């Protein structure tokens, strides 16, 4: 049997991949995908902990995380479209009208 810590470490690595994607990517859409990776890592953590603790609460939480992820995706993509309309670019490095 694979120990729980393997699952947790797998999730942690996935989370860090998500963070890395957020930091490295230039395209807003892929940046947002990185956030989805992070959320998936969280979900994986929840489910494996839920399994190990024999508690359903974790799975319920994952359900809500998914709902929120869907809602976030909707809104996020709408915002991205608006930005694109205003700026004609999805390069995140160009989105810096306000600074200092």
């Amino acid at each position, binding site marked *: *049997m*694979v*120990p*729980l*810590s*393997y*699952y*947790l*470490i*797998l999730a*942690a*690595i*996935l989370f*860090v*991949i*998500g*963070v*890395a994607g957020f*930091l*490295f*990517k*230039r*395209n807003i*859409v*892929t940046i*947002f*995908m990185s956030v*989805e*990776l992070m959320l*998936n890592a969280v*979900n*994986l953590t929840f489910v494996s902990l*839920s*399994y*190990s603790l*024999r*508690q*359903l609460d974790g*799975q*319920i939480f*994952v*359900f*809500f995380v*998914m*709902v*929120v992820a*869907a*809602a976030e*995706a*909707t*809104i996020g*993509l*709408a*915002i*991205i*479209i*608006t930005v694109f309309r205003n700026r004609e*670019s999805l*390069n995140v*490095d160009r989105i810096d009208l306000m600074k200092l």
Partner: protein
Amino acid sequence: MVLHDFFFYILAAIILGGGILTITRRNAVHSAIFLVMTLIGVAGLFLHLQAEFLAAVQVFLYVGGITVLFLFVIMLVNLDEAAKQRQFNRQWGLALGCVLLLVAEVGYFLYQGRDSFSFAESSGVLLQNNTQAIAMSLYGDYLLPFEIASLLLLVAIIGAVVMAKKQI
């Protein structure tokens, strides 16, 4: 048991491979495809952990819903320009350092806490009939968040309409 472990490693490889490819591909469409790969891998692990309901939702909602949404947007906006550019920004070294440090720290904590976790021999009573149990729970203890979640979706709908519609 060996088979069980074998599944885990296969799925882990899929998840990590998909994740890494998601963030390294230049083309956003490719990224989305690899994201799907990761998501399906995660769904597989859910199954593995006796969370059948979540596995199904993961496929429907994430793969079927969110990723398709991503693809829509990618098609909708012109990404040709973005594809040609360098994908990594200049401070990648610094960022990489941050990321590695994060790995180290999280890993350290998990290592510290490792003794507390071990899978006992599986199939506890609670996890039988997963979908039914979750349904009972959702409409029992978690009724309030479940209902409120509908408002969350409503907010998302209004928001998306406000932001994306051409004219209000």
